[in-house]
């Protein structure tokens, strides 16, 4: 490489770095969009929870579930943070992130979805005893939410 080519290569490198940084910002939007691929069956981790995997695509799962029985995981956060359900109600959990998550009760093994693969959907059965049940993602334990059974 001749001397006059070096500034060109350095400039190209700087350009590529800038493009990479910009692409990360734009890709986050697309990667966090609802999954259009069919749900994958992922084995659960807790024996106490009822694990019935949704067989329909995640997008369809959102459409068929009522607004009060679904938790969506997006950008490392549960939505809604607090969900109120009836005793024994089946709750759907949709993972819209690009990494695996769980929805796991913090006490008493009340419920646990097990690993939910990126873009997949899982379900669990709410406890029959009324009360407030905090839960986390067991992989990313800074993620918190609360299930209220009444």
């Amino acid at each position, binding site marked *: 490489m001749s001397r006059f080519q070096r500034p060109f290569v350095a400039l190209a490198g700087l350009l*590529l770095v800038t493009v990479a940084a910009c692409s*990360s910002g734009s890709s986050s939007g697309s990667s966090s969009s609802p999954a259009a691929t069919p749900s994958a069956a992922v084995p659960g981790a807790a024996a106490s929870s009822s694990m019935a995997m949704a067989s329909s695509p995640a997008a369809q799962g959102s459409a068929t579930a009522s607004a009060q029985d679904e938790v969506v995981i997006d950008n490392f956060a549960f939505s809604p943070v607090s969900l109120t359900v009836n005793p024994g109600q089946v709750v759907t959990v949709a993972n819209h992130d690009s990494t695996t998550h769980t929805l796991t009760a913090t006490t008493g093994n009340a419920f646990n979805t097990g690993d939910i693969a990126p873009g997949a959907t899982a379900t669990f059965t709410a406890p029959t005893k009324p009360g407030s049940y905090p839960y986390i993602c067991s992989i990313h334990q800074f993620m918190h939410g609360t299930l209220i059974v009444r």
Partner: protein
Amino acid sequence: MATVASAARLMLRCAAAVGLAVDAAVHAKLAGQYDAVAASVSQGTLFRIEAGAAALAVLLVLFWHRRFGDLFCWLTAAAGLAALLVYRYWNVGAFGPFPNMYEPVWFTDKVWALLGQILAVVALTPLLLFPARRRRVDS
């Protein structure tokens, strides 16, 4: 013989570039989501730094055949590989400005990043251990 060695070196450089490009692409893709994992600095920012360094390394390994450039490429891949494996298997916790990046799970993007980094390290190591002799140009 010299031609064979040159061809082998070129293949190693191309392999390293592919590995580094995969590393850069995966980290750039995931950076936005990992902004949520934050202390003074977010994991998303660290991913952007890795993506930028790996993208620069692609150019260096292909177009700037110098020992210092190859060392930068190797360190970029090796540091990323070390961080990935450490935070996969060891709960380091949050320390200094860094958040707790412990994530005891494999998923597709993480496996791609791992494979890219391993490929880059494997391809760059012989380039560093057996540097090419520079030709003297007599005027």
